[in-house]
């Protein structure tokens, strides 16, 4: 069950302040890096909902993000919908597809679930790659951003677009928290603990899993549409399984099942990538070593490690104080 703690609020405040500072002070390159972090953060937030809270480790979230990008591009450029309507449409399409994938994969577990989601991701990649209307290997260009000039915002300006993405991340985070604190989120938590027990209580387990996968898909579709708006060009590479793998690395690096951790992971991963790639082309090796250290340390990612050491101190009271419990009722 997701709970906010003082420490989590503090980390969120630091991340928010850092993003705002970067948005108002950075130059073009700094803003591009910020936007990359924000879009990745939305993706890993969605992935954490299913993997961290539901135990459904998905290797198709990269493909779902790619589908969101293509759906936005098709709806805005080919169908001619206004960009904001195309954004909502793209989210709905990806949400529906994710619900179907979740419903089909819900009966499998562990490695079989991972492989089933990987298969769906690869099918989506092949379909987009082979279908001429999507531009094949050349991808699609000429993608536009929403026109908010009526309220005095020019999203073609990097700073405004970064703030737009930040607002999007805040909304995605609040939606994820609301879902995880709802009846559906509680049931998901129960399923993660013991699927058999929840079934014995009368719960239709596959529907809960499918619902959460669909909602996670909605948020993933949002990340995909933002990615398309950001680069204004998309290619099948967006749907590659390595994008899903990278997202999973970020979630584990940050802290699985914490919602806040993946945000920390997104910041760490993108900064590490940009700083290291300026020094060596072998930056993946360093990220790999960091990931191995994090996994072997048995801490739940960077955030989990910090929360266990700093968050547990008295100045950061965690959950509601537990009552002294008698031995017998």
């Amino acid at each position, binding site marked *: *069950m997701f709970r906010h703690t003082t420490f989590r609020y503090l980390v969120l405040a630091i991340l928010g302040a850092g993003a705002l500072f970067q948005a108002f002070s950075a130059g073009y390159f700094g803003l591009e890096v910020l936007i990359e972090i924000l879009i990745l953060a939305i993706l890993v937030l969605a992935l954490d909902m299913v993997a961290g809270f539901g135990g459904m480790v998905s290797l198709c979230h990269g493909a779902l993000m790619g589908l969101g990008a293509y759906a936005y591009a098709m709806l805005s450029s080919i169908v001619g919908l206004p960009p904001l309507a195309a954004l909502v449409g793209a989210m709905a399409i990806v949400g529906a597809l994710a619900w179907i994938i979740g419903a089909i994969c819900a009966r499998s577990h562990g490695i079989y679930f991972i492989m089933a989601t990987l298969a769906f991701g690869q099918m989506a990649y092949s379909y987009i790659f082979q279908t001429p209307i999507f531009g094949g290997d050349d991808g699609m260009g000429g993608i536009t951003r929403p026109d908010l000039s009526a309220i005095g915002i020019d999203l073609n300006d990097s700073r405004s677009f970064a703030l737009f993405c930040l607002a999007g991340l805040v909304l995605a985070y609040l939606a994820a928290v609301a879902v995880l604190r709802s009846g559906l989120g509680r049931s998901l938590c129960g399923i993660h603990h013991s699927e058999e027990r929840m079934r014995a209580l009368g719960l239709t387990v596959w529907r809960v899993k499918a*619902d959460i996968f669909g909602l996670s898909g909605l948020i993933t579709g949002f990340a995909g549409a933002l990615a398309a708006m950001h680069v204004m060009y998309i290619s099948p590479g967006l749907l590659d399984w390595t994008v899903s793998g990278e997202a999973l690395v970020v979630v584990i690096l940050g802290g699985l099942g914490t919602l806040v951790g993946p945000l920390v992971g997104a910041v760490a991963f993108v900064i590490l990538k940009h700083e290291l790639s300026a020094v060596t082309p072998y930056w993946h090796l360093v990220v790999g070593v960091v990931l191995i250290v994090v996994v072997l340390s048995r801490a739940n990612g960077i955030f989990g490690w910090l929360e266990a050491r700093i968050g547990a101190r008295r100045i950061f009271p965690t959950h509601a104080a537990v009552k002294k419990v008698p031995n017998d009722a």
Partner: protein
Amino acid sequence: MLETRNLSKSFGPIHVTRDVSIRLERGERRVILGPNGAGKTTLFNLLAGVLQADSGQVLLAGKDITALPVARRARRGISRSYQKNTLFDGLSVRENLGLAAAVQAGQARRLFHDSLSHPKVRETVEEVAHLARLEQVLDARVNEVSYGIRRQLEVGVALATRPQVLLMDEPTSGVGPEMAAGFHDLLSGLPRDLTLLIIEHDMDLAFEVADKITVLNYGEVVFEGLPEAARGSDLLKEIYLGSWENA
């Protein structure tokens, strides 16, 4: 209320349940006895739908539920508690009860609304906490309460689905004599219209709470009758009670 007709189940060449036919009336307290390997838990799994019978029928309130999966049987009113705790460890006692109550109240898939704050769920949680004697520990986390309380909660979670039939697999497993006596009071305090089918190794508890006793041996029903008759049965002494009386 609950009936089985010639229920059979085999795992390969081993017949774990053979032509079991039992009938429980509404509100009846039935205790299932039998040595280890007699097929008691398998029978529970067949009743709950975890296992599918090779042949025979399971009827609930006269309706055939043999083909129904676990969740649908549970929604029809069959609930169970387990021999080993299957609780949600990181959650509080209240949240554990709430998870079960939310399913029963149709709040388990509710979006953007906390199922625990729903009036029906809260009412069920309070009521079950009273029945299972958990009021004092409602806000404690499960991994911080004693083993005895966990056993009570195991029963409480099953009760929170507001079942018609409650299958209890060794509810006093692993608890001391004092707690076992407390369980007797707990079972006596349950609503009289609730049908109970209990697997129990504590003979004193079994004879005290049972309206009727069924004994299984090698998957077969070898005795069915009143507790007094069970006490005097030579067959029972031979296959089961001998070890108890000599203990």
